[in-house]
């Protein structure tokens, strides 16, 4: 499989790119900061990626650059089969609430940018017979919480978009995988104390790779979050309010 993976140098994306490399995929890495790319490309190539791992500049906050980056990926891999978006921004609720510029940037990258990128890629892939799009939403988008609803809102919107994308294009051979991680121990969450059921990036990556192969649309990772969110989604709003959710 030929995969363009956004965010392959860090955290979740690094773990996922490794698993893809180890099954022999050809990889291309559109990314915002190329500084780490050389090291990550060496890592992926040593682990079995097919051919050299190329890269192009891509900033989820700058949609103007998307067509160029997708063209570069198509050239490097002789047409990509799949797009994986692990990149995104994260900040604590207090930080976002205090700084509207930061909030706007987060919403723009996590929702607007990711949606535009996936939509453009979907059109391309569907036109040539299908493929796969995989993006990372979050359990934080399943139910609003007072302490995390700004980040959660960006991911809730993305999840709805991805579900729609799957409905629209599945008949044309394009599948969409929506990953909803719970807390995963990566650099992104370094400032937070890990709660119970915190996941390791490599275990989540294994689940995602399995879903990319077997046709599921929605992945909760670690898997226990499917059950937890089933309960939490079913709770009446009044209960959540009482529980200071």
């Amino acid at each position: 499989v030929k995969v363009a993976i956004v965010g392959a140098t860090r955290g979740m994306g690094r773990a996922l790119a490794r698993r893809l490399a180890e099954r022999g995929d050809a990889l291309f890495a559109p990314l915002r900061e190329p500084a780490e790319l050389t090291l990550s490309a060496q890592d992926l190539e040593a682990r079995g990626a097919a051919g050299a791992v190329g890269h192009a500049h891509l900033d989820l906050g700058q949609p103007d650059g998307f067509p160029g980056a997708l063209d570069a990926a198509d050239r490097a891999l002789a047409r990509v089969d799949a797009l994986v978006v692990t990149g995104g921004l994260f900040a604590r609720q207090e930080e976002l609430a205090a700084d509207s510029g930061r909030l706007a940037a987060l919403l723009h990258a996590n929702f607007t940018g990711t949606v535009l990128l996936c939509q453009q890629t979907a059109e391309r892939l569907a036109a040539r017979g299908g493929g796969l799009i995989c993006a990372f939403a979050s359990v934080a988008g399943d139910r609003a919480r007072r302490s995390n609803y700004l980040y959660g809102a960006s991911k809730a919107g993305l999840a709805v978009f991805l579900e729609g994308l799957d409905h629209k294009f599945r008949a044309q051979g394009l599948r969409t995988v929506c990953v909803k991680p719970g807390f995963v121990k990566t650099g992104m969450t370094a400032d937070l104390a890990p709660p119970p059921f915190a996941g390791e990036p490599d275990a989540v990556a294994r689940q995602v790779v399995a879903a990319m192969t077997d046709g599921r649309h929605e992945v909760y990772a670690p898997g226990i979050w499917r059950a937890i969110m089933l309960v939490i989604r079913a709770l009446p709003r009044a209960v959540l309010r009482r529980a200071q959710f």
Partner: protein
Amino acid sequence: VDGAVERLIAPAPEPALEDVAGWGRYPVGRGRVERPEHLDLPAGGEPLVPRGLGRAYGDAAVPYAPGGLVVESTRADRIRSFDPASGRLHCEAGLSLAEILRVFVPRGWFPPVTPGTKFVTVGACVACDVHGKNHHRDGSFGAFVERLSLCTADGRRVECGPDRERELFLATVGGMGLTGLIVDVTLRLGRIEGPWMVLETQGMPSLDAMLEGLRLSAAHWPYTVGWIDCLARGASVGRGILMRGRHATQVEAGLRRLPRSRHIDVPFDAPEWLLNPLFMRWFNRLYAWSHGTALRRRIVSHDAFFYPLDAVGGWNRLYGRRGLLQYQCVLPRAAGPRPVAILLERLAVAGAASFLAVIKDCGPASDAYLSFPMEGTTLALDLPNRGAVTEALIHDLNATVVEHGGRVYLAKDAVTRPEDFARMMPRLPEWRAVRDRWDPQRRFRSAQSVRVLGDPA
């Protein structure tokens, strides 16, 4: 619902400090832990201790003072290159042996030296100059390292190796991370035909038989080790099971398939009465008795051969909240079997030891100044932490070790006194001189270096 759900979904902003302890869970320090994806020294000259996966038992990777900085390498774990012709692997220091095994065993390569757990980083393998069941033949980890890249205290990146900045290299191998932050390592992996091992085991009735068995096996077997019942006394001192192994050929392994790895976790701290002397005595006896004295031969996976304890996640919790003190020493061959017997006898009388002790013959020492192994016999065992009694016992054992020219292993140690350590390590002054040149301000500092080397706290 309230509290529980709140904690589940809303991780509270992290308190700046975390508890930081070694695998023995004693002592416990408090520190600020950074886990960068790319290793570098933080700005400013604040003292720090490098840390890997936290498998050193004592205080080797515990911050030097409350609130001290810890740089954990585990997220800096990228492979830089691998040469399938020579087996040369260049990687970041946070790469674990578990990951090396996962990626490279299917390709027919194996770490040249491995300790009893695979959950260690390559950087830590260098810093502790770890040894394994093949020490009698191959030496310790440092012998397979071709190049290290360090961030030194002055902020420079320095490359060193056996043929370049040799003194810094010899001080870093076995130097417990106190000469600089190890960023990159180049080492040589060994060729194997597959993931299987030929294992032979034989019951041994006494210490003399065990030592003789190790000596005779050493000539023909790359991996040897003995498990001994450290509660046996009198004529039975040192009785146990001799194990020797080698990588199986494809013909020997046949068409076996690797079992799904079985893994269980210890979910909570066990109560202290669990590992009581009576239980341990019978556990040890049963283990020795169940094997008998016959010679047995079978084919096992490398995981079962090298890492039996890794199958039980968090096994250190079996020792309860106060944790354990692991004791490992080596006694020179010249001293003969006598001091080994004295140590075992003393442990049996104190009834302090728990699960089986590990005994192994070591080959010649390396050139690295603070490397632990030396030609002779090494003994390793777990002591449940019972406070002052246990510490007193260790000082007592140390006295015997010092008297006979042996030494203890810093990767396991939590209590050895500085004067004892200085007597055990004849090359300590040479190491200090190199460290003085590269880190006069003691930027790299740990609870252990404060305790054993007299660094400022």
